[in-house]
């Protein structure tokens, strides 16, 4: 199984990630998830979310999840990018792509990976408020 994990403070560049996609001729399904920062976090309008991680543990926990994914489903490729630092509203914080022979397993693997990430991977977020100088859009 091809694995790519990127934890980065740079903007997630979906076009480049798409260009870099490769899949063998036996693969029939690509499921891609993009998590985007919403303007309302717990009922409050925010300007951004700030993501923090404990990076060595995050990488280790992602590696364990990738192992588990590989055991459960015939996934050919998993790529995951999580942005860190300040992510403005309407920009992606998470990008996940799963390539598998069939649709069912690609959807299952993608949802499993995100669910488990939110349970065990040490990444936290806190809202960044509009300052008094900023007019909420």
């Amino acid at each position, binding site marked *: 199984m091809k694995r790519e994990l990127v934890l980065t403070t740079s903007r997630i560049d979906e076009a480049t990630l798409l260009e870099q996609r490769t899949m063998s001729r036996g693969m029939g399904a690509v499921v891609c998830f993009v998590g985007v920062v919403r303007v309302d976090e717990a009922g409050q309008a925010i300007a951004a979310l700030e993501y923090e991680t404990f990076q060595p*543990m995050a990488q280790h926990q992602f590696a364990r999840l990738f192992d588990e994914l590989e055991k459960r489903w015939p996934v050919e490729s998993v790529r995951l990018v999580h942005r860190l630092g300040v992510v403005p509203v309407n920009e992606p914080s*998470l990008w996940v792509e799963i390539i598998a022979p069939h649709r069912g397993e690609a959807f299952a693997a993608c949802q499993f990976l995100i669910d488990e990430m939110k349970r065990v991977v040490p*990444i936290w*977020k*806190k809202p960044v408020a509009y300052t008094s100088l900023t007019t909420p859009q």
Partner: protein
Amino acid sequence: MRVQIDFYSYFKDLTGCARAFAALPPGSTIADLLRHLYVRFPKLAPMQRATLIAVGVEYQKPDYMLQDGDEVALFPPVQGG
């Protein structure tokens, strides 16, 4: 023995620091460390049921026996995505 404790997310605000060290008797467990920390950082105590604990890069339970030099991390529930 001496262990290092790193705090993440708002646990840093509750303790007022990102890293602390603790000297503990040999044979101490994570539960023993927590009792020590809750005295030293009383604002952490109410978070007990929402505290995740790792040693190195693995999650561990309160009965985990600590070793000299262990790097312990304490943090609230994770929220990636």
